[in-house]
């Protein structure tokens, strides 16, 4: 084993890279940034996908919406019993929810009316949930509490305008802790009856129905049955809910593609610049090395090291920075893309799930092509006879 020989060639490669300090640090910076951007997307989307999968597996097995003339419509609660009759269905509960636009901070809240919440002594809630028939109690998301200049706290009041224009006053009895923000940031929870009078919802209607099916395998059959009984309905399966999030954070989603496109373009430009030939100076240098006794394979080894040093350095730094960015700095650079025009949004505290498969693919599609694009153009220069350097 000629370890020294390989280390010598690497020594020379590094020496040689240092000679063009500006150019090479420039390349490393751009490359690192590309890896950083792409890995940030990978880490962010994978983590959100996993979290969605974990949290939403507790959501109702089926949500039944009513569709009227192609629009979501309030559903009659009277069909409850009929749905209960479907084999496998263990519970049918109306859901009361909607949106409330707060012109004061120009934000949209999600407002939910609940019956008996069944949530007690939950450490992620400071205070408590409103009880079933409480007329003027509300539990609110952390971000709503913090949205105004004067932060709201338990005991403060929250005024909402009802459908007739009158103000209804709610006392804040609970605030969701920030650890639950990914689910609760914009929620206002009030009692079912308060919700109905706030929005002026007709009797015997609900926003939609949550259907519980105890046995996993019976869900699709139950959904089909619901659709048959009530052709105007749209049953949404829990699986679909989870799949929606898989799609949002999957490779092909607009979010991922949009961010990839830029990074990919930059990478291609970088590799293209490499692959489209050597400068006269580099060619001359290869000729000199050959003339003084380097073999073709030595030159190619040097070029291999060159590609490896730059791409591996960039890859590792980019990946490390991406991890810090997404999981320790809350993805502050990318979060705006998700937030859009939102006024209220959660402060991500993402669980650092890592998808090694995607990271490995990223490595394969960046490090390897870069090394190739370093070696291939020097191939030709390295196999020509060195006598060309004797002149000129």
């Amino acid at each position: 084993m000629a370890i020294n020989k390989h280390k010598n060639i690497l020594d020379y490669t590094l020496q040689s890279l240092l000679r063009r300090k500006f150019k090479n640090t420039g390349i490393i910076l751009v490359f690192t940034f590309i890896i950083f951007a792409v890995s940030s997307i990978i880490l962010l989307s994978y983590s959100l996908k996993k979290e969605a999968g974990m949290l939403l597996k507790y959501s109702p097995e089926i949500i039944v919406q009513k569709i009227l003339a192609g629009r979501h419509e309030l559903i009659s609660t009277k069909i409850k019993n009929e749905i209960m009759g479907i084999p496998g269905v263990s519970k049918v509960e109306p859901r009361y929810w909607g949106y409330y636009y707060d012109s004061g901070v120009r934000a949209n809240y999600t407002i939910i009316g609940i019956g008996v919440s069944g949530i007690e002594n939950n450490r992620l809630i400071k205070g408590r949930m409103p009880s079933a028939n409480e007329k003027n109690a509300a539990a609110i998301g952390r971000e709503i509490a913090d949205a105004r200049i004067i932060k709201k706290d338990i005991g403060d009041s929250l005024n909402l305008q009802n459908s007739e224009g009158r103000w209804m006053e709610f006392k804040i009895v609970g605030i969701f802790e920030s650890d639950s923000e990914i689910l609760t940031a914009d929620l206002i929870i009030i009692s079912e009856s308060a919700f109905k009078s706030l929005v002026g919802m007709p009797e015997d209607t609900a926003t939609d129905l949550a259907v519980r099916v105890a046995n996993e395998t019976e869900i699709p059959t139950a959904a089909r049955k619901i659709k048959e009984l009530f052709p105007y309905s749209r049953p949404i399966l829990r699986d679909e809910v989870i799949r929606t999030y898989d799609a949002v954070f999957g490779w092909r989603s607009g979010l991922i593609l949009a961010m990839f496109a830029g990074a990919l373009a930059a990478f291609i430009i970088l590799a293209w610049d490499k692959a489209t030939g050597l400068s006269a100076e580099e060619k001359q240098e290869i000729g000199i090395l050959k003339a003084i006794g380097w073999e073709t394979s030595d030159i190619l080894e040097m070029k291999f090291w060159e590609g490896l040093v730059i791409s591996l350095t960039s890859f590792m730094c980019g990946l490390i920075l991406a991890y810090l960015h997404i999981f320790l700095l809350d993805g502050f650079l990318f979060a705006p893309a998700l937030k859009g025009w939102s006024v209220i949004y959660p402060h991500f505290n993402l669980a650092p799930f890592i998808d090694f498969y995607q990271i490995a693919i990223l490595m394969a599609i960046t490090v390897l092509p870069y090394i190739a694009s370093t070696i291939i153009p020097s191939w030709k220069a390295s196999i020509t006879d060195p006598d060309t350097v004797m002149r000129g």
Partner: protein
Amino acid sequence: MRKSTAFFIFITANLAVMAALYIHSLTAVSKHPVFKKEIKEIAEKLRLTDLVLSTDARYTRHPSQADLFSAFQDFPGSIEHFPTGSVIPPPDFSYMRTEIRIYGN
């Protein structure tokens, strides 16, 4: 020191940082609220179906509940005025079987 040695040290240091981050990820994941029964309780008892990722449009606040309401807003070809709308795809409605059937004679 030989430059090659310095390079190997640098790579090893990077690997060490990555290993440390991996350990961080393992511990952070295991301690993360997403695994707490309290948050599961909230999701279950409030019958929540969506994550709060964005609050600028109905179909980005509740992508899984996004429906056919609001004048074509969810139609794939619709002109979008919310930035997140271009980023969150519309759900698949194909199971609804509301296609138009035209029969000839």
